[in-house]
């Protein structure tokens, strides 16, 4: 009985150890790097480990450079400000360093190492985020509010082309001893008289033209504001250090156009009317919001993914962020339109995955752009 009790306690403890171990698992990337160290003087065996160490350090640095080159442009701008700080000690961001190849060329006096370096993405992200202006601002971080809407086409009204045709005709007659040209509307009259031996030549010129007027399709959308999008965006923005406030709360506390009115406008057009935008921005401004963002995710048609056979839904995201602290709002970040695809066993799951992916990626890009500008 006692053994059983001990067994249960120990099992619980070991499961806890495993749980902690698994939560510590981080996302990582393996990048290769090559480093070469050229030594001076005669080769000495006792110095080889030093040469090796230096070549390995260079290989790690080369892998790091290749890793940074793969980051999105806005993130690279943020990184550049911290490059020397990162390179001073890369150990918190680097895991396993596996030597793929090591060559010692005694003639060239060089030791060359090719290594595969594991880089912890999340550790790099955390460092970049912590160094951002918004994180440094701490409690003074700005309020950020957003309205993000998912739109699905409900009807498309197409208009036929309006065609206007114009035809102008003119005629000229060339008369000489042998020929006579006559013109009467479009008919060519030819007279031939034996006695006078005269001929008539007629030239008719017709000019056609006109215009075609095309009218854009009138598209109506079903607009919704899914919680999944709010959660995905809020997660990225909050992690980046912004104080995220709900637009519903702004309307309740400080006024501004109702979210339903905004939804209605987006169901008819790709943008808000001037008055609606002004009302929304004024409401947010009255609540001390610094950054205000409006975005749409348009849901496309579904198809079957040829690779997996799953349902696939494409969405197209576009969004902008304005700094609304001054009299005239200033655009500080912009994304899209960019397409993302979501996969799932059915259309609902695929659509949900696409919306979450688009919202996360768009908000990551917004944060990167704002960090690059040092905004907080």
């Amino acid at each position: 009985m006692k053994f059983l009790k001990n067994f249960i306690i120990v099992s619980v403890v070991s499961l806890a150890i495993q749980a902690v171990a698994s939560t510590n698992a981080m996302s990582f990337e393996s990048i290769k790097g090559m480093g070469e160290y050229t030594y001076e003087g005669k080769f000495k065996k006792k110095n080889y480990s030093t040469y090796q160490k230096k070549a390995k350090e260079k290989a790690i640095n080369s892998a790091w450079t290749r890793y940074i080159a793969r980051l999105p442009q806005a993130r690279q701008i943020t990184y550049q400000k911290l490059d020397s700080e990162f390179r001073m000690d890369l150990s918190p961001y680097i895991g396993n360093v596996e030597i793929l190849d090591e060559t010692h060329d005694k003639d060239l006096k060089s030791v060359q190492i090719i290594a595969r370096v594991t880089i912890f993405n999340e550790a790099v992200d955390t460092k970049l985020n912590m160094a951002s202006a918004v994180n440094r601002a701490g409690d003074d971080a700005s309020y950020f509010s957003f309205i993000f809407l998912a739109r699905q086409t409900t009807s498309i009204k197409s208009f036929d082309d309006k065609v206007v045709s114009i035809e102008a005709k003119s005629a000229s007659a060339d008369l000489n001893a042998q020929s006579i040209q006559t013109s009467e509307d479009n008919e060519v009259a030819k007279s031939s008289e034996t006695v006078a031996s005269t001929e008539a030549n007629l030239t008719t010129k017709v000019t056609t033209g006109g215009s075609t007027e095309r009218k854009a399709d009138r598209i109506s959308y079903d607009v919704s504001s899914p919680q999944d999008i709010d959660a995905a965006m809020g997660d990225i923005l909050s992690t980046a250090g912004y104080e995220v406030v709900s637009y519903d709360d702004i309307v309740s506390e400080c006024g501004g156009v109702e979210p339903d009115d905004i939804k209605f406008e987006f169901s008819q057009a790709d943008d808000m009317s001037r008055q609606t935008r002004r009302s929304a921005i004024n409401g947010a401004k009255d609540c001390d919001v610094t950054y205000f963002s409006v975005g749409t995710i348009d849901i496309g048609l579904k198809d079957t993914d040829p690779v997996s056979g799953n349902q696939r839904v494409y969405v197209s995201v576009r969004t902008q962020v304005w700094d609304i602290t001054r009299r005239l709002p200033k655009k500080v970040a912009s994304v899209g339109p960019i397409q993302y695809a979501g996969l799932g066993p059915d259309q609902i799951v695929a659509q949900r995955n696409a919306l979450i992916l688009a919202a996360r990626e768009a908000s990551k890009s917004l944060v990167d752009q704002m960090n690059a500008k040092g905004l907080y």
Partner: protein
Amino acid sequence: MKFFSALLLAFLLTFPEISFAKDKVYYAGLSFIGNHADNQKSYPYSYRLAEAKNEKGIPLLEQLLVDRVKKVQRNDLDFIINDLGNYQSGDSVSIALAIDWENVATEQIGGLYKLVLDIHAQVLIFDYGKQKVVGSYPIAVQIRDVSQNQPTDEKIEGLFKTLFYGNDKNVNILDVFSARIQTVSIKKSYGQYLRVTGVNIEDKARPFFPNDGLDFERSFSGLLAQSFGKFLSTNQGVSMLPYSKGEALGNKMAMRFANGDIFNLEIPSTDFGINLTLRGFKKGSVGKTNSKEAFAYGSYMRIKLEQPDFGKVYFDKPIRNVAVKEVPITQTEVDDWAAFQESLFALFDKFSKEINDTDKKWAQKTTGSKKNDVKLVLKEFDQFKKILDKCR
């Protein structure tokens, strides 16, 4: 004492993998590599056979394969099989028979129809949890048939059945798979990854091809890559990633199992790449008697082993092989293409065997090197061997 017992128990529960002598390997099943939408088109006969079900509704081929895998006994591994494979129940390493090429080639020679059927596959080792390919051993079977009549669809399907579950173990892919998993190293990580990354065909080879056109060339390039990979992997016991031309970021491999499961596995980036160049073929008479004539069939390749990210080259040599075939004087039509392929595959076989303990004379002759250069040639073979050691 109690404390130490408890500590030992906690240790064993925390790291269960060391509490058993044998590692677990989950058997995942029979699968087809490639886009789901293209599977039926790419593997018309194999796919049809894989879809056929027994009276219990279980795919027939799958059942036959499970029966074979059950018989595999290893001292170091336990194959976990639950009918169609319970590979989803953990993050242990899993194996699958992944078919990646099916080919039917018909050729008319002197009033006879020559039929060559091929199935190429991988003993694919993957990490289910991480959805990542860990290693792969290429395998292949081929069957040839000659008849007076043009082969019908039924005949071809019948021969494919032989390739899947015929009595001849050498041409039965299920048996080749089970024999291979009996011996190959199956583990969670192979350290470094080797792969055929490119196949080039030079102009001198093209006049000898039985068919013109890009389709044949593309298909033959795939055959060259897979065959070289098969010989190297088998003769050297080395794992090789499945062939793909070049390498894109986020390389993925779609795989569909007979039970309908679809995986999209990540392929690790290549650490060492092999580039094959088919330089050409040559044929010439080397002797004649009253009854027969001997022909030499020369095949010429170039093999390059490099680190693809940094272009560091470890081996880069032209190699050649000459195979002699005797033909009766009365035979008016000769199947040259089959003889060239035999010459080429014999070269792959010999080359991959010679990497270990390279014979000096063979190396000089095969690479067409001068006597003074043999030392350098042997050095490159040694570098090839060292790279293979890293990939085991």
